[in-house]
């Protein structure tokens, strides 16, 4: 009970703010687990009850982070979804809450539409009148993994995000570029909105003063595995990343090298292509 005094509460509020910021900066790539362990423990300790009522945007963000920190069951997710889309709560959700939800869903490999519809996500981001900063850009891009990207609304959402990224004055760090490109790993070039997004990111990467480090080269290119240079905008993105890699002084470790080269493939090849390629190639055991 001694811990419930004012200094302890102030410390928690401060820690929470730092951790929220930190959680966005250390997007969930497997090797950065230690950050999440700390964050999970503290966000669980500071999480509010989850009852729908008047809640500040920050408290709601904390509520969302707290929900995912608990490693929830589908039933708990459904309950949380009902709370989010309740009349009084959905009116309180803002752009930051939506970005947090996208990010957390991507991190825990959940479909964001389990919680809220893409239409609501789009509406909330459209009504969020602020210029996107570096964290907003990389959080949204990373969060794309939690979208199916097959509906018209998802396409509109990607196009809207492309506009916001283009309008943003933010300069992206190496980490932000890596995480942002990693977020594209489940989508292919033919997805509606991807060319616009690629063009916006190409511009951002060109303007970035940061030096790409090895890990970010690896995860960034890994994220581009489904993108084909036959689309002009994606060609621009590939050019921008290539130019960044060229001037980077970083070395690639085994993991980064593997991720980077793995990303050179096109994931959307057809069975006919595989069959034709396999049949037209001599068998490798001819080499002795």
């Amino acid at each position, binding site marked *: 009970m001694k811990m419930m005094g004012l200094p302890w509460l102030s410390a928690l509020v401060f820690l929470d703010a730092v951790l929220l910021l930190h959680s966005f900066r250390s997007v969930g790539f497997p090797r950065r687990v230690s950050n999440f362990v700390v964050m999970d423990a503290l966000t669980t300790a500071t999480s509010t009850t989850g009852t729908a009522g008047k809640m500040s945007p920050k408290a709601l963000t904390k509520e969302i982070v707290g929900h995912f920190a608990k490693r929830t069951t589908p039933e708990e997710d459904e309950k949380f979804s009902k709370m989010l889309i309740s009349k009084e709560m959905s009116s309180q959700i803002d752009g930051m809450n939506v970005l947090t939800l996208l990010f957390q869903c991507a991190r825990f490999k959940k479909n964001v539409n389990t919680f809220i519809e893409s239409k609501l996500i789009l509406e909330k981001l459209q009504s969020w009148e602020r210029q996107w900063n570096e964290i907003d850009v990389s959080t949204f891009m990373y969060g794309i993994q939690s979208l199916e990207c097959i509906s018209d609304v998802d396409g509109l959402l990607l196009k809207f995000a492309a506009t916001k990224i283009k309008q943003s004055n933010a300069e992206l760090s190496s980490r932000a570029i890596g995480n942002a490109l990693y977020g594209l790993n489940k989508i292919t070039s033919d997805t509606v909105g991807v060319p616009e997004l690629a063009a916006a990111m190409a511009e951002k990467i060109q303007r970035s003063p940061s030096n790409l480090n*090895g890990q970010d*080269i690896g995860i960034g*290119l890994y994220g*581009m*595995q489904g*993108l*084909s*240079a*036959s689309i002009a905008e994606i*060609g*621009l993105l*590939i*050019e921008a*990343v*290539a*130019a960044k*890699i*060229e001037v*980077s002084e*970083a*070395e*690639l*470790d*085994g*993991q*980064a*090298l*593997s*991720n*980077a*080269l*793995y*990303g*050179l*493939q*096109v994931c959307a*090849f057809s069975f006919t292509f*595989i069959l034709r*390629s*396999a049949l037209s*190639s*001599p068998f*490798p*055991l001819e*080499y*002795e």
Partner: protein
Amino acid sequence: MSSDHKPVLHLVSALASKVSDSQPELCAQAIGSALFGLQKLSSDALEVRTLIAALTEKVETATVGLDAQAIGNALFGILLSNSYSFDRGIDASVRYFVCV
């Protein structure tokens, strides 16, 4: 990414330098995944041959054995890449895999 496109060749060229300048410790999975990624690249392009040569050097110095998954991924990537039958640089990699 097909190597028919100029931006891809630019990227491959940048990666070739990076791979050449790096001293990575490659595990079996990393070798398999890296070669798997080459499946759409054609060794008709100098940039691709340079990347393959740089990668071959790293694979040759790796001391790990390959498991079935890594061999499968690697051969799949090499087969589809249209590289191994024309480019001597990749021969060493193929020989390495066959010996394992």
